[in-house]
């Protein structure tokens, strides 16, 4: 029986871009599967296009005209002879209509069933479903209420609370609200952002649990009904509800709590007959009570930290179970070993309110060495555009202990060179030196409320000054050799640039 299901597909369309598209291609190639890339006009030269077996243009740069257009993706699948579709994360990954369109076109969707996506994507239905399975949830409202109804409901729930997008993920369309007065503005902002990001402006409210940690459990299910969990990820370090640093395991989760949370996560997954990789997110309060937040029905950005501590290649398992194979692991074969930390490298300026930074990458040098993994779509000449997410790379470090992972991360951050856009690498460096981080004393509000870049001490100003002065001096020396001083009608710099052009 198992054999009949093998080789259900040999050609995979990857409906995504950036580092995750490259990550999925690697897993495909490892299993001998051919890869089909899709790209917008902005991504013609991207790594995921160059590393693919075939690549097809799907439209203009805005995602709403390319990566989010279901018909175009299905067309490419048909044209290219793809037999399966991997959605990655973001874009269409959690859209039941996309999964359904794949099934209708006779394609294998590498993820859960449209029904499971819809059940978990509808946050209210998700809450009802898991509550019925005996899982505690955070108090809140139904989605789909009008602003007036939400404002009335807010008073019952109490402040502070969160406005969340029903179709949401990654913090988009989410707003914290601390008093009744600012609720209507937050609703408008969240609806606007959710419409832009997901094409759906539906929002709901949720009580904010204070001193909470965001801890999630990775689950894997196969079509034979086996569901296992791969332990937890600590994702409390967030800015504007976007995770910035994740680690596995968590500082606060012991074996007993892990077993409990794992069981609950599996129960939540089973409640919707879950197949493939998924993540059950929880808030954990100071007394280690945990509340179901939501289930993400896709591979997560931060999946590598789990891969490093369990040894399981999650994307490869996704492909295997989508082909109808059994999971390669039983629950008691999953053992956590060591510690892994991931820093999300974003194109943004950590010294100016994390404003996104765009531009062309002029130089890049990746950190290497034992225990270091870099997942990225970056290359020299790559242009970071305003069309897509500002995350340009993930830097993941492994150590036997948390301390060793942190030391490796410090060294890797120092070694990572990205020139052409500003990055949040200094933020990560500052965090890796923070006492609160080192002692594991943080919650979901730590980054925004108790962590400041202005406290960062920088030590290399003098050295930077020397470098720039030496380069400036060298240039002016060369320029003055070309035209004697006094004879030039313009600055040395201009002369030097002209001279450089002549040399080419």
């Amino acid at each position, binding site marked *: 029986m198992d054999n009949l299901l093998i080789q259900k597909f040999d050609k995979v369309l990857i409906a995504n871009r950036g580092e995750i598209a490259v990550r999925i291609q690697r897993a495909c190639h490892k299993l001998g599967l051919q890869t089909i890339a899709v790209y917008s006009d902005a991504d013609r030269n991207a790594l995921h296009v160059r590393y693919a077996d075939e690549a097809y243009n799907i439209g203009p740069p805005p995602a709403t005209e390319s990566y989010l257009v279901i018909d175009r993706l299905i067309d490419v699948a048909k044209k290219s002879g793809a037999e399966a579709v991997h959605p990655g994360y973001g874009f269409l990954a959690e859209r039941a209509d996309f999964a359904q369109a794949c099934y209708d076109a006779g394609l294998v969707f590498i993820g859960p069933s449209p029904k499971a996506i819809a059940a978990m994507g509808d946050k209210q239905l998700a809450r009802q479903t898991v509550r019925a399975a005996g899982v505690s949830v955070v108090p809140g409202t139904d989605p789909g209420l009008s602003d007036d109804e939400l404002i009335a409901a807010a008073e019952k729930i109490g402040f502070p609370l969160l406005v969340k997008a029903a179709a949401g993920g990654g913090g988009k369309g989410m707003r914290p609200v601390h008093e009744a007065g600012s609720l209507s503005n937050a609703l408008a902002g969240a609806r606007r952002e959710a419409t832009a990001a997901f094409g759906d402006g539906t929002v709901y409210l949720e009580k904010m649990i204070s001193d909470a940690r965001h801890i999630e459990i990775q689950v894997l299910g196969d079509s034979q009904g086996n569901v296992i969990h791969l332990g937890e990820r600590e994702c409390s370090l967030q800015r504007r509800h976007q995770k910035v640093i994740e680690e596995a395991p968590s500082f606060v989760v012991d074996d007993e709590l892990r077993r409990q949370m794992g069981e609950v996560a599996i129960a939540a997954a089973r409640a919707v007959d879950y197949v493939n990789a998924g993540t059950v997110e929880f808030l954990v309060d100071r007394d280690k009570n945990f509340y179901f937040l939501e289930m993400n029905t896709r591979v997560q950005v931060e999946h590598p930290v789990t891969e490093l501590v369990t040894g399981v290649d999650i994307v490869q398992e996704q492909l295997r179970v989508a082909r109808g194979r059994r999971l390669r692991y039983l629950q008691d074969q999953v053992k956590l070993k060591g510690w892994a930390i991931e820093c999300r490298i974003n194109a943004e300026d950590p010294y100016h309110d994390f404003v*996104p930074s765009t531009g062309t990458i002029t130089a890049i040098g990746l950190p290497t060495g034992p225990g270091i993994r870099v997942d990225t779509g970056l290359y020299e000449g790559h242009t970071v555009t*305003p069309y897509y997410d*500002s995350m340009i790379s993930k830097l993941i470090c492994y150590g036997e202990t948390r301390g060793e992972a942190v030391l490796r991360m410090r060294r890797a951050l120092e070694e990572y*060179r990205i020139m052409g856009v500003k990055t949040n690498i200094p933020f990560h460096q500052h965090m890796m030196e923070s006492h609160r981080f080192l002692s594991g004393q943080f919650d979901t509000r730590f980054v925004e409320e108790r962590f400041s870049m202005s406290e960062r001490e920088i030590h290399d*100003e003098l050295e930077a000054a020397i470098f720039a002065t030496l380069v400036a001096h060298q240039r002016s020396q060369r320029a003055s050799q070309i035209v004697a001083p006094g004879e030039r009608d313009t600055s040395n710099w201009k002369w030097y640039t002209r001279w450089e052009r002549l040399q080419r």
Partner: protein
Amino acid sequence: MKYITTVNGQEYIIEIDQKTEITVNGERHGVDFQQLAESGTLSLLIDNRSLEAIVEEREDAWEVLLHGELYAVHVQDERAYRLAQARGKLSDASEAVVIRSPMPGLILDVLVEEGAHIGQGQTVVILESMKMENELRAGRDGVVTRVHVGKGDSVEKNQELIAIGDAEEIKEQQ
């Protein structure tokens, strides 16, 4: 050659007269400075301490990437420095500060009007880019002298959005 080099408000006087030695604020250091291939990657041995950096020229400064930090460095030779000083005394303080768009995007809202008194750190414009709303804040106290954009406008990188002047200066003009 004598240079006055500024990083994060700190000035260094750096003299370079020969290949293997420089003087920083009067102190001598041995240097060995190598450029690696075409890229901006540089290797420097300063008193045998080994450092690597990438240095690139931008419109208004040199960018130096060193140990993960990106420094904006202004290098001026003595003559240029003196000229700038002389000019600076005349205009510097009263010059309007312009808030520019850090990236292309869509103006979702302009929260201030011309003539409004604003404080440093106050949000003045909400710009949508990279699928997120970004709050652009005033870098100083002052009075809004010009509003160049309105709700719904598309803006390019570095486009002028808002100009901020000194409260006293505005009064004088009136």
